[in-house]
């Protein structure tokens, strides 16, 4: 385990040298176990400045994009997961925040081809638009889905399903509280 940390710290220096001025002191090591990673938080406009540098320094293996919806802060958080085959699988995480009212960011598909399909997924489930992306469409969802992007936090998919298929009524099975020490879920009153 110690060796792993040393490698990541060594990597730090090479990456920091090439990063744009404003991000040189923003690289941090986070996480534990298999999730040990380097993290940089960037401005969404600088994505196409940072990604080529990251690819040059050896982070060549694109894994995916996670989108997190924060309606209380009015932002979408995009998390780019990139690993390195040259540096024994080290993980780099690039985070960026988009305004929730008009979420637009440049596509990464010219740098990492797999991002093309991950971006289609972000588009259909969260409604994020990508500049210069020619294939944004409903891909995993059905073509005739007319509702809002379903993975947004303020979309209640249970309500949509109840309205669409059960006329708004359905018998809910009572929840067994015993199994988790009697602690109740305060997530609205869905489980009551």
């Amino acid at each position: 385990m110690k060796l792993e940390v040393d490698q990541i710290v060594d990597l730090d220096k090479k990456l920091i040298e090439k990063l744009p001025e404003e991000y040189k002191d923003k690289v941090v090591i986070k996480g534990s176990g298999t999730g040990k990673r380097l993290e940089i938080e960037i401005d969404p406009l600088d994505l196409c400045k940072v990604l080529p540098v990251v690819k040059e320094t050896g982070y060549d293996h694109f894994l995916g994009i996670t989108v997190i919806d924060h309606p209380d802060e009015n932002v979408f958080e995009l998390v780019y997961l990139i690993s390195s085959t040259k540096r024994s699988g080290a993980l780099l995480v690039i985070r960026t925040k988009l305004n929730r009212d008009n979420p637009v960011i440049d596509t990464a598909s010219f740098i990492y081809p797999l991002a093309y399909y991950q971006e289609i997924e972000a588009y259909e489930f969260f409604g994020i638009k990508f500049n210069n992306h020619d294939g944004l469409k409903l891909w995993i969802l059905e073509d005739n889905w007319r509702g809002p992007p379903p993975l947004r936090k303020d979309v209640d998919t249970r309500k949509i399903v109840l309205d669409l298929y059960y006329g708004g009524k359905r018998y809910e099975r009572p929840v067994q509280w015993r199994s988790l020490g009697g602690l109740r879920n305060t997530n609205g009153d869905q489980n009551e």
Partner: protein
Amino acid sequence: MVIRMSKRVISIFLGPQHPGAPGNVAFKLLVDGERVLDIELVPGFLHRGFEKMMEYRRWDMDLVMSARICVEDPDHVELAFTHALEQIYGIEPPEKAKYVRVVVAEFSRLASHLLWMMHFAGPIAARYATSWAIAAREEILKWFDYVTGHRIYHHYIFPGGIRWDIPSDFKERTLKVLKHIEPLIRDLEKGFFKHPIFVKRARDLGRLKPGDAIRLGATGPVLRGSGVKHDLRKLLKYDAYGEIDFEIAHGEYGDAYDRAMVRLKEMYISMEIIKQAISKMPIDGPYRWRLQPAIPAGEGIGRVESARGEFIAHIINKPPNKFSGPLTPYRVKFRGPTMAHLTTVLKHIVRNEEITIADLPVLIGSLDPCPPDIDR
């Protein structure tokens, strides 16, 4: 459905109910006579909205649901979910659980590779190989039934350790299974993998260079078949893999034959890992730490080397608010290996090589897709 683009070039669908299609996906092909010019994936036939459903449910329910994401290799998805959750709780599983997890994960890999023979040997018309592989897999399913109580979805790997303690004759029983399946796999090697018809069919088909494999996001046996020695078990040394001595199976040429041979070698390596894990495993000691029901705020990324490639579970939890309760995770995202293999990798191969419609089932079979992890 056939769309005529010109006199010769037409666009046709392959799947999802076509016998040559690998599970619940369709492909849109652009063909010129027999030759496939371009291929486009049409997923979504098995979209169940797991990521949204998990936001409504407690984390112990989510674990049970996570296994459904990849039917053929469920234990690695559970393992990724468990790693991510354990990072949020900030705990390490007990020593005994680490070894049991390795044994369960490797048996899951063996079962998955044996089931893959069905998708792969079937289209080559080697039905005998399919039956032998399923016979060997049956022994592993019986073992799972005995140890975990279930045949297909086990939910045995649990945040904090393993769900139940192992039975008293765990070691003897496991060794007996290995003794039973090893000759069957040796038969498969002689009867199928070394068979001249198979070698002629799969050699030089769908070559993927190492640089391209990395660039396009390939993982697992597809990446290793191209000669890149990249295995998270060796690199990240999660659970008890750091204590176990094993080699990384890899190919040289990167064609369909090399990818198949990597899976065969991995079956032998898996059996070796299981034997070592069993001999080094502590018999006494705790098997699970009890976790508090409410998840602390935090973020966890669980990365595991599944039978098909790198599987990631990314869990984010925030303090309870209007949108999320104390027992439910705020957001769960899974990254499966299949999306890269069926989109970028397959497209690259089809565009750069002369692939006919008859080659497609062999080519797609050699990538070992599990379409549910695209749809989720």
